[in-house]
């Protein structure tokens, strides 16, 4: 079998060679605990400090405003619970949207169980939130607005700066999960006017298991994990130095050169639009998410009469690695809450397909993938149409 065409960069991305190279010393000779006083510890601490400076520079933040975590899910839980509890004396109302990642839904659910009120602001048919609707949802007891920068399933980009500004005017904290946005969208936290912003390394050719959280100076955030005083007492636990070094290097490589980043985004946007054009030729399907305000690497679709999991399996066996975009590849029966919230007809929601490109994706790969999607959609549809027995009561083989 030939090497697979990997079009699932929103799930995770391959580790970039330069990143691995930067990490290796911290997995071998610089093994020290960054909190130790001795030379080995100091060496590790240096790697951690340099990484923190590097990440802070990309965000336009101060190094002391950046902590390292285990990734986006921890970021989300720490930020939402940490900010909500820190503000709980002033109010217990959190505003979020109907299309957030399950980590956001779960963290908000935890708060609800403790008496907080959570409002989910609806989105339009493209999955976009109207800042005016956020403003409207904010009440006297609101302390936090939590929103994803770009949606992981459909790639729609939210007007974060506008939402950041309106929250700041009202003295409300903001948490923005920028995991999917990290390779392509503006991240300057002062422009975005956000208080807390999360990143994850493995979506941008870094290692899995490490994330970074920007916490604006002066923002109270209650730690969610008991233990030592690491990461300015915001995140207990021995620092993952190699991970932090990997994250910093991945972020630097992706964003260090603004012109190169813009060129790469344009290149991916071109491939994306080519792919969208090809898929639009297929019958009974449609693009999900915003046609233009979407991540340069994200193509998401729904096909009528198709089970997304079947389509992904079919593509896999043809050498194209894709996703349904939601958790149903793991065999869950739940349809995507994101697509439902966008008003995609329930009979189409199950037929979702997400193709997400990366730096290493070529035009030849997206062209071949488009052909194979056409083949597999037709095949899966044909098989679904041959269903002979619908009724449980029909006598068998009579």
């Amino acid at each position, binding site marked *: 079998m030939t090497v697979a065409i990997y079009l699932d960069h929103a799930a995770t991305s391959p580790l970039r060679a330069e990143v691995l190279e930067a990490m290796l010393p911290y997995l071998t000779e610089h093994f020290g605990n960054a909190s130790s006083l001795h030379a080995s510890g100091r060496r590790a601490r240096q790697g951690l400090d340099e990484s923190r400076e590097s990440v802070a520079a990309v965000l336009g933040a101060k190094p002391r405003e950046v902590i390292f975590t285990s990734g986006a899910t921890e970021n989300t839980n720490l930020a939402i619970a940490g900010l909500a509890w820190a503000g709980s004396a002033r109010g217990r109302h959190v505003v979020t949207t109907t299309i957030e990642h399950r980590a956001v839904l779960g963290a908000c659910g935890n708060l609800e169980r403790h008496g907080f009120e959570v409002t989910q602001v609806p989105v339009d048919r493209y999955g976009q939130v109207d800042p005016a609707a956020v403003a409207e949802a904010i009440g006297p007891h609101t302390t936090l607005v939590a929103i994803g920068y770009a949606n992981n399933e459909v790639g729609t980009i939210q007007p974060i700066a506008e939402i950041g500004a309106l929250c700041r005017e009202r003295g409300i904290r903001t948490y923005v999960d920028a995991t999917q946005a990290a390779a392509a969208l503006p991240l300057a936290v002062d422009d975005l006017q956000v208080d807390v912003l999360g990143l994850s390394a493995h979506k941008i050719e870094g290692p899995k298991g490490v994330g970074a959280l920007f916490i604006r100076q002066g923002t109270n955030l209650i730690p969610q994990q008991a233990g030592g005083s690491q990461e300015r007492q915001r995140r207990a636990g021995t620092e993952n130095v190699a991970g932090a070094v990997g994250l910093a290097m991945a972020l630097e490589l992706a964003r260090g050169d603004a012109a190169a980043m813009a060129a790469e985004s344009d290149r991916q946007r071109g491939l994306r639009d080519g792919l969208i054009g090809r898929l639009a030729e297929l019958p009974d399907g449609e693009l999900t998410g915003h046609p233009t305000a979407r991540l340069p690497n994200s193509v998401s679709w729904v096909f009528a009469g198709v*089970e997304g*999991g*079947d*389509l992904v*399996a*079919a593509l*896999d*066996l*043809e050498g194209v690695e894709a996703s349904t975009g939601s958790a*149903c*590849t*793991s*065999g*869950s*029966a739940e349809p995507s809450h994101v697509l439902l919230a966008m008003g995609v007809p329930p009979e189409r929601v199950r037929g979702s397909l997400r193709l997400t490109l990366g730096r290493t994706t070529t035009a030849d790969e997206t062209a071949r993938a488009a052909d194979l999607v056409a083949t*597999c959609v037709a*095949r*899966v*549809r*044909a*098989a*679904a149409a*041959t*269903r*002979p*027995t619908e009724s*449980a*009561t029909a*006598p*068998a*083989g*009579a």
Partner: protein
Amino acid sequence: MARIVAAMSGGVDSSVAAALLAREAAAGGDEVVGVWMRTHPDAGEGWEPRKSCCSSEAGDDARRVAQLIGIPFFVLNVEAEFGAEVIDAFADAYLEGTTPNPCQACNQKIKFDLLARRAVGAYAADGVATGHYARIAHRDGAWRLLRAHDAAKDQTYFLWNLDQRQLAATRFPLGEMTKPEVRALAAELALPTATTPESQEICFVPAGDYRALLDERRTYAGEPGPIVDASGQQVGTHTGYAHYTVGQRRGLGLATGEAAYVREIRPATNEIVIGTREELATTGFVADARHFIAGEAPAERFEAKVRIRHRSTDVACEVTLVGTDRLVMETREPVWGPAPGQSAVLYRGDECLGGGRIVRS
């Protein structure tokens, strides 16, 4: 090259079946794709899932086996279809006063229909393989379903509804093996399922108590009613007709001197009729929904052997085709307690001819 989908339950039989196919594939045979079907939901978040055949724990085992034998592996969610075609049908059978046949329903509606069709669609496969103990051969111009070599494990009783199209696209790699051989091979291949215990219970009724399920799926709580004898005399009280099956002896709560069995269930009047062992014996019964694997019956009237429940002995009989879908069986010696809803499966020598579903006489 052809491609075959191996249905993997997470038990030892389907694991070894897949392993045998993977071994053939490595030697240039058909490519193999492993599939585990999620048939019912997991326990809630944070709770240890119940262990049964087809639990998510069994799914984990199936995935490990697929990794070890080096085949692609997918999870197929069939909760909706399994719920309707197997679980609801199971509950409905009890509510109709009949005995359900969930394994047969799962084979007919899920493994050899839904899976087979989706496998063809999604995996561009040419057929399905399972860990059933049965054999397939092409003889005298038709595909034949044959008993397994291991008579103690033969599962043709649950497969009588297969047709020519399905048999042509089905593989039973264990048909010529015995259970000890299968276990030995699993151990030799160090499969994590080598010592998985035999599943004896119905996979979606782990504790063997289906009463809760009737309530849950069909809001049937059970209404007490009379237990009567052959003369119509009330001899006891039952908890609800659907809680009983024909042939049942235990749990009747009767203090009669002689052993009593459920002979008949009357949903319309909520009555359970009991009888002695002799009273449950009969030499004639009728089945509907008849099906012949070869496509047609051997004759309008023919000799065969009939089996009326899994693991019971086959009895010689004369079979007559009546009407559009009925079979009338007249046995040479008495059979005991043919239960409406159960399969009557017909054999000739090592061949399973087909069968029907026993109806109330």
